[in-house]
């Protein structure tokens, strides 16, 4: 797999000790956490929590369009942004790295998913924004100091020193 599509497997990531509450309605909450930072980007979990006691909404996945899913956008302080709409991904060959940032959500489900963001943010606020009209989650956002990401990237270390990163 190309280096831009996931974190380097030969590296111990740096942990960002933050869990962000990005959206909350009376029934749902959206959290970003598990931020693991590498020199080339960062992984995180996108978690959708349903308030205990509230009924589940059952839908046939085959009948759902992309607009029925949770939309996520990550915005850098310099104006660049990436989102989880795979229809807007750049078309590149495997060897040609796209311009960062690129957001790749590797798992998608009613409970959220796992996300890889290729590229580190510049210093300043890093914004996580989401909305899910089908679940009545309005446009919502939370900010994180990108310095925490950059400091965690500095703590990342090579698992097998002396070897070129994969």
């Amino acid at each position, binding site marked *: 797999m190309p280096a831009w599509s996931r974190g380097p*497997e*030969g590296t*111990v*990531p*740096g*942990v*960002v*000790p*933050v*869990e962000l*509450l990005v959206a*909350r309605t*009376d029934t749902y*909450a959206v*959290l970003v*956490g*598990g931020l*693991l930072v590498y020199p080339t980007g960062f992984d995180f*979990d996108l978690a959708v*929590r*349903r*308030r*205990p*006691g509230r009924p*589940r909404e*059952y839908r046939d996945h085959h009948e759902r369009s992309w607009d029925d899913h949770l939309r996520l956008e990550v915005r850098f302080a310099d104006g660049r942004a990436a989102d989880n709409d795979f229809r807007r991904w750049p078309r590149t060959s495997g060897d040609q790295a796209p311009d960062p940032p690129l957001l790749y959500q590797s798992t998608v489900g009613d409970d959220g998913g796992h996300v890889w963001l290729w590229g580190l943010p510049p210093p300043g606020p890093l914004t996580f924004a989401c909305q899910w009209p089908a679940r009545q989650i309005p446009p919502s956002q939370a900010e994180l100091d990108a310095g925490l990401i950059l400091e965690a990237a500095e*703590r990342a270390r090579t*698992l*097998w020193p002396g*070897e070129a990163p*994969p």
Partner: protein
Amino acid sequence: MSFFAMPAWQPPSGYRIPSWLRPPDGMVPGIVPVELLLGRTDTHALLITDLRAYPTGVDFALTARRHPGQPHQRRDPRRPHRFAYHDLRLELRFADGRNPSTDSRRWPRTFETEEPDPPFLYCHGAGGSERGWRSRHWLWGLPPPGPLAFVCQWPPGRIPRLDVEVEIDAGLVLEAAGRAASVWPAMEPDEDSER
């Protein structure tokens, strides 16, 4: 009804995963600010990451990574139907001598229906590929102050042989649990006992 006829749709059974088998849904956890390299050989490395603390316990991930230069060997050559990582065994050692483990032979028989005495270490998800293995664990019950050791081993005879232990200060876990907050502050305490 014909053998091939689909049964009528039934509403969900209402089964609720008990609170001792999973983190609470209604809480934002406190993050434990550590990244742990448990052990490393020429071919594999074991990490503990994603430590998230709640008032009732700790959720974390155990990750096995394969050296990028190693040939793909995801299965135990002696038992090719099993992932080689399947037999990784994890134990936590508390300062007071208690030592919850993923060894299910040590679990009470009724752990799925009756609340066990904490601490109780439960694996609530695992998966992998030829690149490695990742399992998520829920520790029901917080450790006491003092050293908290993570001990991991492959049974003798597995390749590679690994028997590793790393300690952290349990105070980091307890402080993080103190930072956990309710997602819905008005929620009744017993609301989160269902799913």
